[in-house]
């Protein structure tokens, strides 16, 4: 995996991950053989950086199992798009099915994992990712609540702070919830953090970042895992 590392204008001594790098970090951790849904936003990028040597089956809630990477422009098919409405391909072994079956897979607990975006995640795993509460714009929920309620595990992929620099990992979500207490792991542009019964535990941080500095950008208390590692982008 190669890619440009963006540098922060405010912070020195560490570099934030790009969106694609966040997706890559999460993709690397997906267990071999998993059936996984990729939500809108950063998670969708993971389809293009799936780990080599593993066979992971990607699910799209519009009725696809075995989603492959985006096609060359000449190979685009208007009948073959993912839940983000991006053109995709189908892997050998893939299948198409009706929407209600796509969500039977989700709600019925058949998906091993869903990677979702977030506006806010709380220390207890509460997820808010469907509406900013701005009443000038119509809200859109899509499959977010089904995925949050139904997948065996939920990982969130997000920037660590908002564009205004406010924490997205919060004590309590101020935005309307997608589902309570569902998030198990958070991948940000700065760290990989587990949501545990004993609070948030940092597993990885980007090189040069300190727990103290990360804590300043995070509302709930962070603990550092005994075996924490640098978040290194290969």
């Amino acid at each position, binding site marked *: 995996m190669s890619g440009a590392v963006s540098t922060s204008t405010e912070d020195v001594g560490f570099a934030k991950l790009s969106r694609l790098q966040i997706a890559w970090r999460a993709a690397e951790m997906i267990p071999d053989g998993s059936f996984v849904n990729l939500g809108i936003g950063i998670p969708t990028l993971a389809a293009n950086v799936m780990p080599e040597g593993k066979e992971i089956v990607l699910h*799209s*809630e*519009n*009725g*696809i199992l075995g989603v492959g990477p985006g096609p060359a422009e000449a190979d685009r*098919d*208007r*009948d*073959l*798009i*993912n*839940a983000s*409405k991006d053109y995709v391909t*189908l892997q050998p072994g893939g299948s*198409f*099915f*009706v*929407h*209600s079956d*796509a*969500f039977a897979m*989700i*709600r019925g607990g058949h998906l091993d994992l869903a990677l979702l975006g977030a506006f806010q995640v709380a220390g207890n795993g509460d997820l808010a990712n469907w509406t900013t509460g701005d009443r*000038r*714009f*119509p*809200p*859109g*929920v*899509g*499959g*977010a*609540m*089904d995925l949050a*309620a*139904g997948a065996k595990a939920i990982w969130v992929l997000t920037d660590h702070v908002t564009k205004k620099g406010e924490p997205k990992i919060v004590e309590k979500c101020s935005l*309307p*919830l*997608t*589902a*309570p207490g569902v998030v198990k792991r958070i991948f940000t542009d700065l760290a990989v953090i587990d949501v545990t019964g004993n609070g948030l535990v940092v597993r990885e941080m980007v090189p040069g970042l300190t727990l103290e500095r990360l804590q300043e950008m995070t509302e709930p208390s962070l603990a550092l895992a005994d075996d924490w590692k640098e978040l290194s982008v290969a």
Partner: protein
Amino acid sequence: MPIDKIVPDVAAAVAGVKDGDTIMISGFGFAGVPNDLIHGVLDAGARDLTIISNNAGTGTEGLAALIGSGRVTRIICSYPRSKGSDLFDARYAAGEIDLELVPQGTLSERMRAAGAGVAGFYTPTGVGTDLADGKEVRRFDGRDYVLELPLRADIALVQAYRADRWGNLTYRKAARNFGPVMAMAADLTVVQVREVVPLGEMDPETIVTPSIFVDRVVHIDNDREWDI
């Protein structure tokens, strides 16, 4: 008399659509949207419509055109706002269209319930969120579920790939999406297809929507790209 659900044109396909109707429209994003049938409804002039569809239309044609026409007073969908949903956004901002937002899995399951004679079902989706406000919540085996009710329509407009005169349907790739459940859930199911084949030519193992769910089929061989 041979059963023949093939009708000659779009006007015949949507004949009978009337003011106040609830209309399901298949498609997810730009895949599987029955644009010709939608424009048939627009041409038929019906007003005060309720639309049930995953999205609220983008660009200037298809569902966006119908909404832009001011004939839609209410929409039930999961994800109305997308890049290009300006015609919907404007109506919404002006308070000219009611929105019932439904989680996508609940939306398709409510359609299936209507089609399958199920009067209600309990889903874990939405529990503890604003979208469960005012709904019955009930605990089964230590987990909370929301009661959701079936969603019916007067007419379903569906895009499929291939049909025969009985109304058997196959779809193409991700354009299948809501088609099969909408076909079950409407009093009148109208389908536009790219190919009509003689009866008996469709492999009985591979038919996705069996004939019993379909009322009218119109063949649209035009392959134009819509502004949606």
